[in-house]
């Protein structure tokens, strides 16, 4: 199994993902600089978290125009799984690979803490290591994680099983108080229509090893590596 990570000026979670992928895939991911015009063959492409281009103009807007992202779009259209985490999610929205946008957190503060997520659709290459309604813990660390989209888009995401994760409390209830950033319908992560592209604000790579305090994120990488994980 091969994987690739796109690295932008300002990426800062690329090496965390590298460690998580190496652990699950058994091979070191290829680190691809944003200026590359060709991507290596890969069974998974990760667009990592960070502050690409210093979040200038809008978070992810500059990175979406990088040559490597053009290639990511082409491969995504061919069905290659693409995972965007945090700033990666923002980049995928700005690239039109995912609908909607991520604006400033409703509380205006940068939020950095662990949150609970309910698994909304475990029937995808990313989430099949989880069960429906499972409550998992993952860290968030962002200033612009407030997901917004037109009402019809939100309805479409709900009805087509394209909401991957919702922010919830420790009982698995997606309540308003459990929403850390004001996201519409407590959305923490969404799929594209074909469900081979996932964008999410929480960081699965930051809880993918017992040494990090938990392994709830690991099931995603194990599933992507084609392993059964329980």
């Amino acid at each position, binding site marked *: 199994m091969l994987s690739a990570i796109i690295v932008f000026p300002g990426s800062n979670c690329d090496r965390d993902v590298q460690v998580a992928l190496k652990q699950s895939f058994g091979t070191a991911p290829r680190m691809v600089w944003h200026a590359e015009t060709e991507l290596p063959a890969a069974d998974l492409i990760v667009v990592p978290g960070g502050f690409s281009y210093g979040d200038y*103009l809008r978070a992810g807007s500059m990175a979406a125009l990088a040559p490597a992202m053009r290639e990511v779009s082409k491969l995504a259209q061919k069905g290659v799984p693409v995972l965007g985490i945090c700033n990666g999610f923002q980049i995928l929205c700005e690239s039109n690979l995912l609908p909607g946008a991520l*604006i400033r957190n409703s509380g*205006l503060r940068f939020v950095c803490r662990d949150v609970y997520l309910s698994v909304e659709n475990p029937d995808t290459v990313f989430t099949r290591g989880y069960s429906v309604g499972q409550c998992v813990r993952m860290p968030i660390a962002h200033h612009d994680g407030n997901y*917004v989209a037109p009402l019809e888009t939100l309805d479409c995401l709900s009805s087509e099983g394209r909401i991957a994760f919702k922010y919830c409390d420790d009982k698995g209830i997606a309540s308003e108080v459990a929403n850390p950033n*004001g996201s519409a319908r407590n959305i923490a992560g969404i799929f594209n229509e074909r469900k081979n592209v996932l964008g999410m604000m929480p960081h699965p790579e930051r809880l993918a090893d017992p040494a990090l305090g938990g392994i709830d994120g690991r099931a995603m990488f194990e599933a992507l590596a084609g392993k059964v994980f329980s």
Partner: protein
Amino acid sequence: MKIEVHITLKNGVLDPQGKAIERALGSLGFEGINDVRHGKFIELELSETNKERAKAQAEDMCRKLLANTVIEDYRIDIR
């Protein structure tokens, strides 16, 4: 030719920064503020001298980069 682009969040999209500014102004004693919308202002100096073409060029820039039309409106002024 100088082009000014104003970008604001669409009506209906919650503007947390605008709300914070509104509250801060209230706490300073300013009264009668009904709404505050926070946005961006971008100034462009174009070599194009034809107004129509300059505006078309700026429109294209707004759609492709300057604004995210999912959440933002833009207004182009030519000086």
